[in-house]
């Protein structure tokens, strides 16, 4: 019986861009357990959102995450529009969809590069980030910023896509497709990448459902879910595209799903540019009525969920956010166990983790070092209250 050793990864570690702390419990070369410590990136966004004006919150939630910086405001405006059942001009819906899909392109290219970097294949990193630059140029042309686009607004979008920008966008997409073909060939036919990724970090269909995986992580395990199709928002019900599903659940499948999704994104943007009607881009919403609203968006990493409760004033009463990585990071607990240490890096990175979306906080009493209240306590309190109400109703 070999001895169990703990290998700490983080908080500042060359493997990660973000401060995050993993504890690997290893026996020899084999990982037997993994522990994830969150909280290094917590900024209290939900609380801040409750003290800001509805229009300001769209900018605030954009700063939750820099990579999916369109998904959060998109889900937020969907939630607010859901409160008042507001009508959004059709052109605005198409523009939102174009921005969301351009974001998926840049995010997947970014992930592909980082994944290449993690397995020691820096050529993939350099090439994929090179082809990411034209996508960022498109963003700069349409929105004025390379990242943090500031496009979403309750009832519409802030900027229009000009007619003279459309040919440039189409040209960029035309030039991107050969690059995608190259990646498809280079990654999917490369024996080294196959040897490193096939059969590594397997998440079976059953496990994916049990651990509530979302987005490409779930789709690579054969779970056919996609918010864009299941609960259409934006203009996704007006264009033709396919949901990419793979069966194996290993990291190779996750890579394949993401590469093939980029082709779908290119197709969606092309159709949107062709079918986009002329007209208004903003519904000029004045008041938010009291009520509750839910906004769901398929971010590049999976389902992004926003809940907004309004009491009729100009600030949200409650704003709840659930980012996709919160579900996906937990799947490492099954995917990384049983691997060697060297495969853990790519397994941890394969869910495309975005910790700044995910952060939660726990209040600790410094003197006694005991926790005051954490998520489980809150759930317990809530369940006890429900029980009380049930009992009161029965009597």
């Amino acid at each position, binding site marked *: 019986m070999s001895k169990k050793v703990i290998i700490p990864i983080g908080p500042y570690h060359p493997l990660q861009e973000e401060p995050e702390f993993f504890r690997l419990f290893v026996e020899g070369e084999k990982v037997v357990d993994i522990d994830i410590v969150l909280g290094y990136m917590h900024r209290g966004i939900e609380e801040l959102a409750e003290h800001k004006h509805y229009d300001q919150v769209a900018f605030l939630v954009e*700063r939750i995450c820099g990579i999916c910086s369109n998904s959060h405001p998109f889900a937020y405006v969907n939630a607010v529009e859901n409160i008042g059942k507001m009508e959004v001009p059709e052109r605005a819906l198409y523009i939102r969809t174009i921005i969301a899909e351009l974001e998926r392109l840049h995010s997947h290219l970014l992930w592909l590069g980082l994944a290449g970097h993690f397995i020691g294949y820096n050529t993939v990193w350099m090439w994929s*980030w090179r082809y990411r630059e034209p996508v960022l140029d498109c963003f700069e042309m349409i929105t004025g910023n390379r990242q943090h686009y500031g496009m979403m607004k309750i009832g519409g979008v802030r900027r229009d896509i000009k007619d003279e920008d459309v040919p440039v966008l189409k040209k960029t997409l035309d030039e991107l497709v050969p690059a995608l073909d190259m990646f498809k060939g280079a990654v999917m036919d490369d024996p080294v990448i196959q040897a490193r990724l096939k059969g590594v970090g397997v998440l079976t269909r059953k496990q994916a459902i049990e651990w509530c995986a979302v987005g490409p992580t779930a789709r690579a395990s054969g779970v056919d879910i996609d918010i864009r199709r299941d609960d259409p928002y934006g203009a996704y019900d007006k264009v033709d595209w396919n949901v990419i599903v793979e069966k194996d659940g290993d990291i190779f499948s996750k890579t394949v799903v993401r590469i093939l999704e980029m082709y779908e994104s290119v197709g969606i943007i092309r159709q949107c540019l062709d079918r986009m009607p002329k007209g208004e881009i903003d519904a000029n919403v004045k008041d938010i009525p009291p009520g509750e609203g839910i906004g769901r968006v398929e971010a590049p990493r999976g389902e992004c969920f926003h809940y907004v409760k309004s009491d009729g004033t100009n600030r949200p009463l409650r704003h709840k956010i659930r980012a996709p990585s919160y579900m996906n990071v937990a799947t490492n607990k099954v995917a990384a166990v049983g691997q060697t240490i060297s495969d853990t890096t790519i397994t941890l990175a394969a869910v495309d983790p975005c910790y700044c979306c995910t952060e939660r906080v726990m209040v600790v009493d410094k003197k006694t070092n005991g926790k005051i209240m954490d998520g489980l306590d809150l759930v317990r309190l809530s369940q006890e209250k429900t029980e009380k109400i049930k009992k009161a109703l029965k009597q």
Partner: protein
Amino acid sequence: MSLKIKALTKSLWVFHAATSPCNNCDIEVLDLFTPRHDIERFGMTLVGSVRHADVLVVTGVPNYKTKERLKKLYSQVSKPCLVVAIGNCACGRIMFKESYNSPCPVDEVVPVDVYIPGCPPKPEAMIAGIVKLINKLKAKEKK
């Protein structure tokens, strides 16, 4: 010019400390090392350990957890060490000023040499900032 400063200005090795940013500045910092900007031409590279670094790049608003880490990181860098604050958050905390989890700005934790504002700053702006830093070092040495 002393040999130390001459060597330092020729090839700055960068350690990148993210103290609860939104990831955007971090991506743009990485972007500097990819083919379009490629600042490895100028001898700069990212290093894995803070003990090898000449420049500490800080992004984001420090929170209670990362504040202590940042202090510890700064104490481990071999001196002379230059600190660059990248992004509006690191420069002035902007919209996170009122957050319950942001005790202080970066420059109250470690001394900052160059501020590069922007949300996120463009890679070109970062390169301009680094050039200013090198010029500042050289000017200091001449005096």
